[in-house]
């Protein structure tokens, strides 16, 4: 069985991980080192904590690289799955955990290469898709 690693970029009950593995246990780990370096105020921590209270997730703290595998062992899971994120810190952690990465459906499907140098160029390419989807 796979353990779902929930991180703060995807606190959704219908995340791709919960959808793909509805019977799997899940865990969120407050990353003490990241919190110390980011200096998030109580407003941010409290908001995320309240989001977690909505989810069928076990909450822990410490080093995610130690805590997630430890929890996996406790609940008899041998592999880890999570949701993709652009956050490089979370990406690295997912890679170390050798987690399966499930990517959410994109906001808009784009054919070909997107020029991201300016919003106007991106918008010209996606506008019709967004208008059509309305």
């Amino acid at each position, binding site marked *: 069985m796979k353990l779902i690693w929930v991180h703060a970029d995807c606190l959704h009950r219908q995340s791709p991980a919960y959808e793909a593995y509805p019977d799997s246990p899940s865990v969120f780990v407050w990353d003490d080192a990241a919190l*110390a370096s980011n200096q998030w105020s109580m407003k941010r921590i409290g*908001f995320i904590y309240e989001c977690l*209270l909505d989810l069928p997730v076990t909450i822990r703290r410490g080093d995610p690289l130690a805590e997630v595998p430890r929890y996996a062992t406790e609940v008899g899971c041998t592999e880890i799955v999570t949701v993709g994120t652009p956050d490089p810190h979370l990406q690295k952690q997912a890679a170390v955990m050798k987690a399966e990465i499930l990517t959410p459906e994109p906001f808009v499907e784009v054919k070909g290469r997107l020029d991201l140098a300016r919003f106007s160029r991106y918008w010209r390419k996606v506008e019709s898709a967004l208008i059509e989807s309305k």
Partner: protein
Amino acid sequence: MNMRKDFADRSELLAYLREQFPMASGELSPFVGGRAAAEERLANFNANRYGATRNFLNGSVSRLSPYIRHGVITLREVLQKFAGRKLDKFVQELAWRDYWQRIYAEIGDGIWQDREPAKTGVTYSPNLPADLGKTSLACMDAFAAELEATGYLHNHARMWFSAYLIHWRRVAWQAGARWFLHHLVDGDAASNNLSWQWVASTFSHKPYFFNRENLERYTEGRYCRACARRDDCPFDKSYEQLGDELFPRMEYR
């Protein structure tokens, strides 16, 4: 050891979090986390008035950003809610979030570096000013206080505040961006940093700045009326005058 999930109310949650995270300063945000709160905001959002009023501090904006930021509700879900309605401006704002996330996916930690050289010809300080929140400029002090108290600022207030810090106080955008991320409940390195860079001109063709007339209009005068510096306002000039003063060496002038 598992952390607690059973709380009678927010004050019990806050007491527990203070014990667990003693280094985290302040109170809980008025934004309540969770799916129910996100759906309530979505239901109460008057999208029809968004396009015409969104630049006003009391305009009709969704305040969904903290929920979108943490994936509590997805951009697709928000888009689908308004399917079939002509709300181009709001859809474009959703697209901005997607655009920034796509850049973040490409550049990762490069989000902290200038995307392009600044066009201002100005040298910036790496530190926040010591009088942050105590400048006696009613608008800027109110924005700083609101950010620290609530973890949220209207987008226009973010633009004015960041322009003030970067262009009037000559603070490097990274210092302001980092401070915003300590507090913003929707704090996200992509949307936040790239917006600061847009203001700074490291991610646009020219710096963003404003004048008193603009701020007074969209705040409906709420700060200027009682401001101790209303007769000594550093923003009370034409755009041309301000451009000359703020960017005397700007390359394209």
